[in-house]
């Protein structure tokens, strides 16, 4: 799975969860909490949406700080 495809997939989910986000600025270094403003409940929703789109399960909820870390994990675990 190409890194840029995963990023695009992630952006699609983020667009649904937080339509107000300016997705053009989202990159590997984007912080989930301080840059995207995701709270613990939104992160739970994001975890469920990622699992549903990329067909794998996180252990517990998503515990990453940056978009790049999430992408790394998806590439490693997605089918």
């Amino acid at each position, binding site marked *: 799975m190409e890194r840029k495809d995963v990023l695009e997939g992630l952006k699609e989910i983020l667009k649904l969860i937080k*339509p107000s986000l300016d997705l053009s600025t989202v990159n590997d270094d984007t912080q989930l909490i301080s840059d995207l403003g995701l709270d613990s*409940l939104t992160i739970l929703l994001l975890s*469920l949406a990622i699992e549903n789109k990329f067909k794998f399960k996180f252990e517990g909820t998503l515990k990453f700080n940056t978009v790049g870390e999430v992408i790394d994990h998806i590439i490693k675990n997605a089918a």
Partner: protein
Amino acid sequence: MKNYFENMLPAEELAQLKYIPTIPEFVTWIENKWHDLPALSDTVNTYTYAQVCDAVARKRAMLNAMGLAKGDKVAIIDNTTVEAVEMFLAVTSAGYVAINLPAQLPAPAIVGCCMKFGVKVLAAGPAFIETVKDAPCKVVAIADMADQPAPVAVVDKDDAAAIFFTGGTTGAPKGAILPHRAIMRGSLNGCYAPGKQLGCHRYATVLPLSHVFGLIRSTMSVLYTGGLWIAAANVKETISKFPMIRPTCLVAVPGICEILMGLVKMYGKQFLGGNLRFIIAGAANVPPKLIAEFDEIGISLFAGYGMTEGANLTSGNIDVKERPTSVGQIYPGQEVKVVDGELWFRGDNLFLGYYGDPEKTAEVMTPDGWLKTGDLARFDEDGYMYIVGRIKNLIILSNGENVSPESIEEPFYKCDKLRDCLVKEDEVDGKMVIAIEILPRMEEFANTPWEEVEAYFKKLVDEVNATLPTTHRICKVTVRKEDFKRTGTMKVSRN
């Protein structure tokens, strides 16, 4: 004459539901009443009431063999699991006092709790057994049980059954001691919901057992009605398995309801399994917008009011469409009155006091048994209750007048573009004024510059100010980009 709640149930079901004052009697009753029905499931294995009660009886025997005396404390730490429910029933039906510890407690806090409460035995789930190995008491695996069953103990309805931490939005956590009669009254009151309830519901379980809402309404009431309680390894897993679990009912905090609505918007109603009829929402304010959104997809979202000291359930509202801001009518078994604006109640559901803290207990409980809730309430002409604020949060104005921040916050929650807000005192140019912090629903402001978001809410504040007495007007507005600090039940923390 039947009351509001009794009218919800078919007559033949109402006749079967009696108040059972102690947990040992309850365990015996559910074993006989619902024997072969499915009771608890971890989504892989499902156990009947007979199997669960057998495991409970053998766990009782295991505990008895440890030399415990009646009233000794047994702490339980685990996720929301079948074994944790069985252990709670075993501890309390053997005459010991259960303390369900919050699963997120760090190891030093677990040790501190064991010392503070004089815990004799700590039952730990597999994910916790290593963390708690140095606890100052005996540690057993939560799955442990003896080969042979032990009978239930004889207890008095006023004996302590469990200690719950009161989280609350203000003040330090305290240990509220609930007697058998209180837990059982709360559990019975949780059985009232519209339509047939007995032996027919599947509950997806998403709340922790360390909270009264998770233990009483989300677990004990389910067992009272012969329902099937289902929990996967964690909340995320349970939600992701909704299409397989196909729950008919759910007990949840509003934050979880928001997540479910987010999933419905992304993947459609079928993501919830297709059978969900109603959600009991509580432990925080239920936004009318959420009630309306669930109503649109044919799911009723019922709100209510309760507190740990009153065994979870004091009032409930099924008429949310007509009265979306009410917390409903008062459940049976209680007397209520409003004293200087504050809600007081007493009844079977009242706690015994705060563990080791008679002063705090005396602050909230009168000598003749009334609990002073600290919540400001009013009733409408039809007996529906509305919570309008908390006494502890009162802002004392320079003119000596008391203002409840919640009463100022209330009109803001009618705005669909606002997620949460917090009114408090703040200093401006050396003078104390009323201030508000607002957290927007950012999804409502797609591609909107931040200045316009701020301007929108400043205009809203102006509009609300125009309806307030001049002394109550908000003088400082902050629109937040980051979430508020929240309590364990996702309420906005006022500390």
